[in-house]
């Protein structure tokens, strides 16, 4: 794949690539999926990719990402091997059912889908397209808006694999399902994983989505997750990103919620050269609840962008957004959160808060809270702050005998804790807690394997209060 030249735009280049490889891309397609791809391609031709003039992209420049000479695997290159040899997630005591994608493809090529005792189906999307075409066709593409500039259309045109989770009605999936996205390629690589999650009535699912890079090579992940929550369904969704400086990740998440369903999402960005997380939650029936939490800790010249859109399309729904970030060095962060309250969405409760701490004069945070309300009986609020550590609090700690460094770390930790303590999986919360503490001390780096896989098997002791002080 040749890179974008002076004479071709990124769009033209990707369209050309699509047409040249169409046969391979669509090998596993059902008819509706092929039709969906065509729509996506038409949308790219019409709307193009976002640029700095596109709404929600004013502070995130996509252009440089397309300059690399990326390779795309148009077929599953995974060979049977023991994934645990190159990767183990060792969040202490975290017991999950894990699925691993390597360079966007399910690591166990052609493996059958797994059906758990309770009827839950887990496995590769490519396989699901073959085995359960009707189920896939019914949902895929239905939550995604491809009619605007953005990378959702690009994912829709190019995706070939990803994960598929189907939880039937009335099933509580006990163990969290963990999706591990690994990028391991000697050459710059572009991947378009696509995930489809369907949670049935009164069912319950916890999904932990980890993005990792195993090498320091250049990669561009453009993933998309569609989630459908039926009536009274409950889902908790964790996204943990700890990637190398040369990794770019764009994550689009589209969620459709039915009556009385609940979603809690936690987006934790601990590292990453370029990260953009988009969450679109549609509260389509009454009394649906969504809670979106986020934490980003970035330094050097990392860039993180969180774009949220909560669509209150029905009455009596409740949404909360809490995103917090700590930015060091020349790091930049963008938060754009929009709450839309449609005409019929009376008795809506919608809250949004974004708080940023800048540790240097060079770090930058752009925050754009937006409320668009067409109903009259609603309670909505939004707030955003960009600031430094509270000097009053710093002074308070120092008058108790703590040195400036300890005081700063404690306050940053406290700032992050508001988000961290919302994590309900105990071992995960404890591990994230330790990682954040290490991160704030400047001790967390990308291990050659996984970030959650620190070199020591022993759990690190929380040691801001370290007795050795």
């Amino acid at each position: 794949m040749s890179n974008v030249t002076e004479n071709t735009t990124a769009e033209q280049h990707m369209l050309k690539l699509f047409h040249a490889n169409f046969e391979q891309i669509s090998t596993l397609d059902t008819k509706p999926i092929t039709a969906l791809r065509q729509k996506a391609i038409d949308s790219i031709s019409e709307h193009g990719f976002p640029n700095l003039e596109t709404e929600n992209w004013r502070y995130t420049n996509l252009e440089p990402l397309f300059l690399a000479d990326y390779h795309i695997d148009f077929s599953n290159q995974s060979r049977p091997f023991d994934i645990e040899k190159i990767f183990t997630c060792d969040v202490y005591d975290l017991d999950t059912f894990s699925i691993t994608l390597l360079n966007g493809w399910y690591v166990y090529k052609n493996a059958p889908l797994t059906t758990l005792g309770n009827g839950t189906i887990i496995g590769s999307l490519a396989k699901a397209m073959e085995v359960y075409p009707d189920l896939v066709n019914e949902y895929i593409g239905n939550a995604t808006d491809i009619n605007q500039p953005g990378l959702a259309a690009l994912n829709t045109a190019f995706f070939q694999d990803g994960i598929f989770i189907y939880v039937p009605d009335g099933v509580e999936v006990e163990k969290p399902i963990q999706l591990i996205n690994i990028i391991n390629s000697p050459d710059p690589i572009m991947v378009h994983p696509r995930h489809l999650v369907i949670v049935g009535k009164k069912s319950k699912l916890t999904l932990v989505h980890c993005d990792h890079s195993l090498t320091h090579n250049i990669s561009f992940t453009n993933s998309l997750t569609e989630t459908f929550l039926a009536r009274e369904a409950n889902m908790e969704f964790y996204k943990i990103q700890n990637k190398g400086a040369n990794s770019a990740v764009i994550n689009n998440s589209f969620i459709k919620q039915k009556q009385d369903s609940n979603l809690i999402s936690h987006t934790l960005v601990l590292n990453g050269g370029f990260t953009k997380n988009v969450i679109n939650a549609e509260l389509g029936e009454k009394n649906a609840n969504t809670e979106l939490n986020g934490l980003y800790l970035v330094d050097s010249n990392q860039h993180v962008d969180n774009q949220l859109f909560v669509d209150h399309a029905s009455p009596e729904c409740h949404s909360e957004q809490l995103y917090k970030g700590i930015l060091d060095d020349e790091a930049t962060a963008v938060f754009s959160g929009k709450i839309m309250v449609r005409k019929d969405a009376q008795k809506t409760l919608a809250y949004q808060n974004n708080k940023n701490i800048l540790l240097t004069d060079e770090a930058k945070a752009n925050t754009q809270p937006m409320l668009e309300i067409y109903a009259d009986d609603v309670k909505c609020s939004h707030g955003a702050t960009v600031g430094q550590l509270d000097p009053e609090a710093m002074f308070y700690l120092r008058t108790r005998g703590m040195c400036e460094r300890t005081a700063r770390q404690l306050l940053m930790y406290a700032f992050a804790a508001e988000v961290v303590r919302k994590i309900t999986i105990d071992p995960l919360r404890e591990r994230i807690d330790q990682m954040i503490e290490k991160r704030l001390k400047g001790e967390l780096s990308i291990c050659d394997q996984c970030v959650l896989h620190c070199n020591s098997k022993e759990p690190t002791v929380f040691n801001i209060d370290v007795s050795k002080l």
Partner: protein
Amino acid sequence: MLSIKDLSVSIHGKTILRDFNLEVNAGEIHAIMGPNGTGKSTLASVIAGRDLFDIDKGEILYMGKDLIEMEPEVRAREGIFLGFQYPVEIPGVSMANFLRTAINEKRKYHALEPLSGAEFLKLMEERKKLVDIHSKLTNRSVNEGFSGGEKKKNEIFQMAMLEPRLAILDETDSGLDIDALKVVANGVNKLRKPENATIVITHYQRLLEYIVPDFVHVLFDGRIVKSGGKELAIELEEKGYEWVRKEAGIEETL
């Protein structure tokens, strides 16, 4: 113990303390009274080391050492404690964690071994009893969601844990009901030792019914305009600050 001589302090060019003098010896309790905006809290902050202010002249000696050059944490480790008028909330950091960090930083400074977890817990229980604090505030995050009274009691508890030589209580009585006030006063009295000293900053005489001062100073316009014994506080209660202002010949500002 504390010797402040001809101290002038300003912020953004505005003088707050002018030619201020105060001598505090071991075993004494000093009350500093005065209307709002006369520099009481500034005095407390300056002794504790807040860097918001410019020290224009004068000196502050503590145990014979120049305090002005010392970082706030060093002052704390040397035995100075400031009870805040508005204690800061630190969500996500438990009281135990916070105090253990503080105590062990102080111990390290004095070349002492850190307290083990068990020793620390024992000390905490003992001090809770000493100052009659039975609530579970030590299990919670620092001041988070505490009522006004709980915050002030928590300041006294921290004081009991850190065992300062010189404690400055900045308006610790403000916003307290009578029960909380008694807990605070009782704590201060129980922690009183011949080798320690306390400066109580207050607007009202009420607290001084429970913490009996050896000296009362009235602060006006950035300096002490009248000093006396505990009876001065009672006189002030009767006659009001206007009386001192006129007596000192200070023009009415505002």
